[in-house]
């Protein structure tokens, strides 16, 4: 009986801390900006509807067939990105995107670029095993 009560209290304690932690994350705002306009919001939805994440990554999370696109807006010109979106590549199909859709995706990439830097080489390593980024 005593052992059961102890186990149950540990279970309950961990659960309460877990749900409290979850609530903090749901309601705390991060430093990064929200998606600024409707066009970029639509771009994000387009990113999901076309399932871009199956080949591409944001912050290293996603598929491996194509490159990480978090900071593509800073690395490549708009024309370069547009060319890819318009015609695809030897691996990526042409999704027959309209001019508006291409613009919405560009707005989304413009936004993702403002949220941070995804390049792992931009992190400094510390002796205690942690990392930091300027």
């Amino acid at each position, binding site marked *: 009986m005593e052992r059961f009560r102890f186990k149950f209290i540990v279970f309950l304690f961990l659960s309460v801390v877990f749900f409290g932690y979850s609530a903090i994350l*749901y309601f705390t705002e991060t430093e990064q900006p929200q998606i600024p306009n409707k066009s970029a919001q639509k771009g994000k939805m387009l990113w999901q509807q076309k*399932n871009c994440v199956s080949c591409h990554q944001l912050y290293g999370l996603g598929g491996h067939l194509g490159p990480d696109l978090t900071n593509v807006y800073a690395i490549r010109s708009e024309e370069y990105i547009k060319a890819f979106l318009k015609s695809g*590549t030897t691996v990526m199909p042409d999704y027959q995107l309209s001019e508006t859709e291409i613009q919405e995706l560009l707005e989304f990439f413009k936004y993702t670029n403002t949220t941070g830097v995804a390049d792992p080489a931009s992190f400094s390593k510390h002796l205690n095993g942690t990392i930091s980024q300027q």
Partner: protein
Amino acid sequence: MEPSHNNKYIKIFITTGLLFLLSALFFGLAGALEYVVPGVWRNIFSFEKIRPLHVSSAVFWILTTAIGSVLCFLKEHNEQNIKNIKIIRLAFYIFTFSFVGILISYCFGIFGGREYWEFNPLFSIPISMGWILFIVVFLSNFKTLKKQPVYVWMWFTGALFFLFTYLESNLWLIPNIRNHLIKDMTIQWKSYGSMVGSWNMLIYGSSIYLLDKISGSKKYSFSNIAFWLYFLGLFNLMFNWGHHIYTLPTQPYVKHIAYVVSMTELLIFGRIIYLWKSSVTTAQKHFHINSYRFLIGADVWVFLTLGLAILMSIPALNIYMHGTHTVVAHTMGATIGINSMLLLAFAYDILKPKTKPKFGYWLINVSLVVFWIALIVAGFSKAYWQFNNPEIPYGEMIAQLKPWFYVFFVSGIVLVIGLVMVIIPLLKRR
């Protein structure tokens, strides 16, 4: 306990799960071919359809078979038929229609576009309903947690936390979360990390039950060490998920908590090493039992996968593995080497085929080692590119990895052959 009249409704979960596994293998091979011959499917059935077909089929194999084995073992544990079998039948139909519907929707290019759960979010309604029905049946089949072995606690935890984390993974539907990329990704990976922990609770719980059954003793399941390890697993399920997002600019405390909590897994790793000798002796004793053979295979893969996971959980090492094929190696080690190996052990115990899966078993394990190493080497090569040669175009870097993709593809074919050899006797016994 011998199977009785309502067993067929539970067994159907296992056989359906095996069909999803076959689907995962088929689309896995098709996807792997894309790495060897880039663009091979471009105009026929492009990769953004193949990958979710592979991933979702694998997840459905895990979920369906995990539910079936929990119900079957709960029935044996209680030594009486499962109550509310009609509800389970309803849940089975809901899951099957939803899962098949999802696979069909992918073929038509209908996506929700969230990694791993890439289907339209409308499918989440029946999936959640099916899971609630599973919980109702599960809870109605035991009166209290008092005097219950550790595996019943694990099933209970897995069933409840899966529902919570699954619902949590749909929070992106709320505009305030969806329109805040970093918050969205933080919650997304929080839910995924804990969700995998939840289905692991169902699967590991069943593996402890099966070990008890084979050894004929329930001493371990009631022991203090079993419960300490259960609480350690629960602690990690709840708080270690942040190691997926060390490079995401989210709140720093998320990463610090994840780092510290993940390091507690060293206790499990150390225990495996400490008990290595006695584990080998026990393994030799029971190795002739089909299901036990798969349990031993999973043990070896727990050691390898956990070792890699611990290294990946150190942020300073994580940056060399994150976003590379090393993460794929870890996922494959966990889903094939651990989850699938354990689920096959349950299937062999429940369906009891007469054929011994000797050759298929060794084929799976040997090819999986080659497959795993090829991915790790490809991952390290990609990391080298990220840190030293980022000026080389992505496509060129991927082309340089091709030799490793060939090894990955050929070992993948052998792996599929091995798995099919193991699955066929099970399907014949359904």
